[in-house]
């Protein structure tokens, strides 16, 4: 969910051909990047990165269920592309905004100390580190980030009876 203007933010960032979201659980320097949030300038460097990622994905698809993210990170590691990192405080993934739950299947899991390291509100929240469409809807709704049906986007953390009603509605 986008909560603030990312274009204005992008225009104020130092010039990089490519900016990527961190795929780390922490807020420090990213060694692994996420292909779920990418800002790309139309340069030969950005094009070369995407084309090398396509080649890498074609290659690894032949032998495994690899992802575009794994392919991109393999290219970044091998070719030492210089990419910018979107600040996790403003562009958190699910690990940073909701916390890390080891089974990736509990939409109720929430770690307040992780959230405290994010800006309020962040520029966007990526609802990853959780498997399943229904789980993602539940988690976004519980945190006031599901406004497609016309609900107000800003809502406090809900109590147990509200959690139950959200589950009944989604499943």
């Amino acid at each position, binding site marked *: *969910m*986008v*909560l*603030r*203007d*990312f*274009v*204005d933010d*992008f*225009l104020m960032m130092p010039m990089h051909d490519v900016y990527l979201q961190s795929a780390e659980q922490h807020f420090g320097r990213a060694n692994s990047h996420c*292909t*779920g*949030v*990418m*800002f*790309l*300038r*139309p340069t030969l460097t*950005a*094009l070369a990165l*995407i*084309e090398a*990622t*396509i080649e890498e*994905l*074609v290659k690894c*698809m032949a032998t495994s*269920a*690899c*992802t*575009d993210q794994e392919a991109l990170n393999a290219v970044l590691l091998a070719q030492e592309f210089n990419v910018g990192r979107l600040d996790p405080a403003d562009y958190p993934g699910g690990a940073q905004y909701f916390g890390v739950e080891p089974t990736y299947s509990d939409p109720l899991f929430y770690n307040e100390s992780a959230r405290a390291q994010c800006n309020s509100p962040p520029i*966007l*929240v*990526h*609802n*990853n580190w959780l*498997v*399943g*469409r229904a789980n993602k809807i539940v988690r976004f709704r519980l945190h006031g980030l599901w*406004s*497609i049906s016309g609900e107000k*986007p800003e809502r406090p953390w809900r109590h147990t009876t509200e959690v139950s009603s959200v589950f009944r509605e989604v499943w």
Partner: protein
Amino acid sequence: MAFALDLEALDVAQSTDVEVRTELLSASLSRESNYGSASFQPVVMQKLRALQLLLREGRTIFFLDTVLNVHVHVHVHVS
């Protein structure tokens, strides 16, 4: 801008005011949506093809695996 990857997505995209492109439309693309599964690979390959097309056209890309809150205004700069 939206690249419709199948007919159902095309219907949805055309019901919005977003520019819709159909170069990557396929009748046989997997319906899988779980990241990391083998049958999701063709879907993410199409995503990379879309990025490649847009970069070749000289467009700046903001790719988001998430949606825009209708209450947020995003400034688009055209030069």
